[in-house]
C-alpha cells in the first residue's frame, strides 16, 4: 500500500530537514542581514492597534528595520504565545508585545529572552522579568482613574452610569473596570455603577446593549466605555434614543471614530494617548535595545523625531493619557 511508503519518505524528510539546527537571531538564516522587529498587538482588526501599527511602520521605515506585524485574529489567548514562540524559532532580533494576559505570555517571552531576543512591551505590561523595557503610555490606574474622573466631572459627581466593556474575559478590560470601580468607591460615593455589559468587541452588539440599557435604566446619566468601539456605538444609541444631552458618553477611543459624535455634542470627550507615537516609540525602543543604544539604567531615551522620553526604572514614559474634546479633536487624525 503506497501510503506506508509515502509516510516513510515523509518522516525521513522531516527528520533530515528537522535536524538542521536553529540559525540564531544574530544571523537570520539566508536573508539579508537586517534587524527584524516583531510587533505583536493584543488582537488584529482593532482600530486601536491599527493606529499603533501606523506609528510602528513609520518608525521601521525611518530606522530601516524589518517589521513583522502579526497577532491573533480571533479571541484566543493561546494564540499570542504560539505567535511569539514561532517568532523565536523564526529568529527575530526583538519583539514588541502588547500582552493580552500577563502570566500566559510571560512564559513565552522569557523563553525569547533566553534565546537572546530583546523584548519590549507596550500598551499592557508582562511580568517584569519577561521583558527589557515597558513603554508605559499610562498605567491601568491612570486610565481607570482618568475615565472615572472625567465621568464624575460630567455628572457633577452624582447619578447612575453604565459601563460597556469589550468582553467579560479580556484582561485589560477587567483591570480598567477594576480601577474605575476603585476610583468611584474612593472619590465619588454619590455615583452608582448601574450596570456592566459586555459587547464581545462587536459594534452592533455594543449599540444594542446601549439601547437596552437606556430603556432599562431610565435615569441613566452617562455611558462609560472601556473599549474603543463602545464609545461611538453608545453615542449612536443615545442619539437614536433622542437622549442627546441628557445622557453623556465618555470612554477610551480614537478621535477618528468619534469625531462626528464629539462635534454633535453627544460624546463629550474620549480619552487616549497618541497611539501612533506609542507604536513608533515601542519599535524605536526595541531597535535601540538591540543596537545597544538603550541599556538598563538609562535615565532618558532619544527617540528620533519623537523627541526625548523619561525613563523610570525600566518604564519608558510616553506621557499622560490625552483627553480629546470639541476644541482639540480636529488637530488629530488617527
Amino acid at each position, binding site marked *: *500500500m*503506497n*501510503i506506508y511508503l*509515502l*509516510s516513510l*519518505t*515523509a518522516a525521513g*524528510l*522531516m527528520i533530515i*530537514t*528537522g*535536524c*538542521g*539546527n*536553529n*540559525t540564531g537571531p544574530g544571523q*537570520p*538564516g*539566508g*536573508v539579508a542581514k537586517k534587524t527584524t522587529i516583531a510587533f505583536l498587538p493584543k488582537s*488584529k482588526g482593532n482600530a486601536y492597534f491599527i493606529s499603533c501599527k501606523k506609528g510602528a511602520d513609520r518608525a521601521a521605515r525611518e530606522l530601516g528595520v524589518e517589521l*513583522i*506585524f*502579526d*497577532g*491573533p*485574529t*480571533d*479571541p*484566543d*489567548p*493561546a*494564540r499570542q*504565545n*504560539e*505567535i511569539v*514562540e*514561532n*517568532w*523565536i*524559532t*523564526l*529568529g527575530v532580533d526583538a519583539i514588541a508585545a502588547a500582552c493580552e*494576559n*500577563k*502570566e*500566559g505570555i*510571560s*512564559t513565552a517571552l522569557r523563553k525569547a529572552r533566553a534565546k537572546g531576543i530583546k523584548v519590549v512591551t507596550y500598551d499592557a505590561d508582562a511580568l517584569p522579568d519577561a521583558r527589557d523595557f515597558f513603554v508605559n503610555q499610562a498605567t491601568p490606574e491612570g486610565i481607570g482613574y482618568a475615565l472615572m474622573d472625567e465621568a464624575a466631572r460630567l455628572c457633577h459627581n452624582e447619578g447612575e452610569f453604565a459601563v460597556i466593556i469589550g*468582553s*467579560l*474575559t*479580556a*484582561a485589560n478590560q*477587567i483591570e480598567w*473596570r*477594576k480601577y474605575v470601580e476603585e476610583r468611584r468607591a474612593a472619590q465619588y460615593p454619590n455615583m452608582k455603577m448601574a450596570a456592566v455589559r*459586555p459587547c464581545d468587541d462587536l459594534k452592533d452588539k455594543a449599540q444594542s446593549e446601549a439601547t437596552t440599557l437606556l430603556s432599562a435604566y431610565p435615569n441613566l446619566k452617562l455611558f462609560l466605555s472601556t473599549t474603543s468601539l463602545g464609545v461611538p456605538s453608545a453615542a449612536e444609541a443615545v442619539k437614536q434614543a433622542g437622549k442627546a444631552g441628557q445622557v453623556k458618553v465618555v470612554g477610551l477611543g480614537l478621535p477618528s471614530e468619534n469625531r462626528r459624535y464629539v462635534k454633535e455634542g453627544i460624546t463629550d470627550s474620549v480619552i487616549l494617548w497618541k497611539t501612533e507615537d506609542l507604536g513608533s516609540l515601542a519599535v524605536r525602543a526595541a531597535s535601540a535595545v538591540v543596537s545597544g543604544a538603550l541599556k538598563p539604567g538609562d535615565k532618558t531615551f532619544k527617540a528620533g523625531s519623537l523627541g526625548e522620553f523619561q525613563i523610570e526604572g525600566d518604564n519608558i514614559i510616553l506621557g499622560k493619557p490625552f483627553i480629546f474634546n470639541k476644541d482639540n479633536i480636529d488637530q488629530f487624525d488617527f
Partner: protein
Amino acid sequence: MRHESFLLLMLIAEWLLFAAVGRNFTTLDNTFDIIRHSGEIGLLALALTAVILTGGIDLSVGSLLGLCAILFGKLWRDASLPIWLAMTCTLGAGALAGGFNAALITGLRLPPLIVTLGAFSLFRGLAEAITRGMDTFTNFPPTFLRLGQERWLGLPAQAPILILFATGIWLLVHRTTFGRSFRAIGFSPEGARYAGIPVGRRVTMVYVLAGLTAAMSAILYTARLGQAKADAGTGYELLAITAVVLGGTSIFGGTGSVHGTLLGVAALAVLNNGLVHARQPREVAGLLTGLLLLLALAGPVLLKKLAERRGRWHSPAPAIQNNETA
C-alpha cells in the same frame, strides 16, 4: 488514490514549500513548536473522529475545554486540592459533561448538532458565570507547568501524550469491536440495532470520550499557558472538526480513519506555523485552511465527474447518483 495518501502528499508539499520560503522553518525547535501547538486541537480532533464516525458531532468541546480549565483552577486554588487530585476531578467533570450530551442525544433521540449547540453556549456560559468572567487562575506549581512547557527526554511534553492518545484511539477505532460498532452506527443506526449492537451505550461512549478529552486538553492548555480563564479554547471545536473532515472522515459517519485525522491536524498545524515563518499574516492561514478543505472535498468528486463525463458526457445520471451517494 486513497484520501490519506493525497493528504500526505499535500503535507509533504507544504513542508517543502515552507522549507524553501520560510526562515528557520526546518529546525528541530520549530518541529517541536508545531507539535506543542497542535496538542489540544490534536486531542480534540482524535476524540471527534470517533464521534463523527458514529454520524454524530460535538460542537461543545471548545466550550467544555474552557469550563474544565476553570474547574481545574478552582479545584486547585480555591478548594486547594493537590494538583493530581484536581486533575482527576477535572477529568471526571469532563466525562460527566460528555455524559450530559449523550443522555440528551440517546435518551431523547435529539439531533447531536442541536444538543451540542446548546451545550456550546451552556458550558461557556457556566465558565463565565463561575468566574464572573474576570477570575483568572495563575501561579501553578512549576512541576505542573512542565507538562505543557518543558521537554521530556528531548521531546516536548505534548508529544508523548499525543502519541499515546493517538495510538489508543487508533486501536479503539480500527482494531476493536467498539470501533466496528461506531462505523455500523454511523452507516445505519437501525441496522446496527438489529445486529444486536448496544447503540445507546456505544454512542454514550463516544460523547463521554469527547468530554474526557476536552478535560485533558483543558489541563494541557492550562499547563502550556500557565493560566486558566473562562475564554480558554474559544473556537477550538471548529478547528478540530475541520481537521477531522480534512482527514477524510465523512461527516455522515461510517467512513474515516484516525491516521487520516492525524494527517489533517498536521496539515493545518504546519500551515499555521509555516506561514509565520514565511512571514505571512495569520489571516492567510485561515483563508488557506478554508480553501484546503474545499480542495480536499471537491477534488476527488470533480475528478470522478470528469471521468464519467468523458465516458458519457450527455447523461445527467452520474451527477444525480453523486448527489444521492454524497
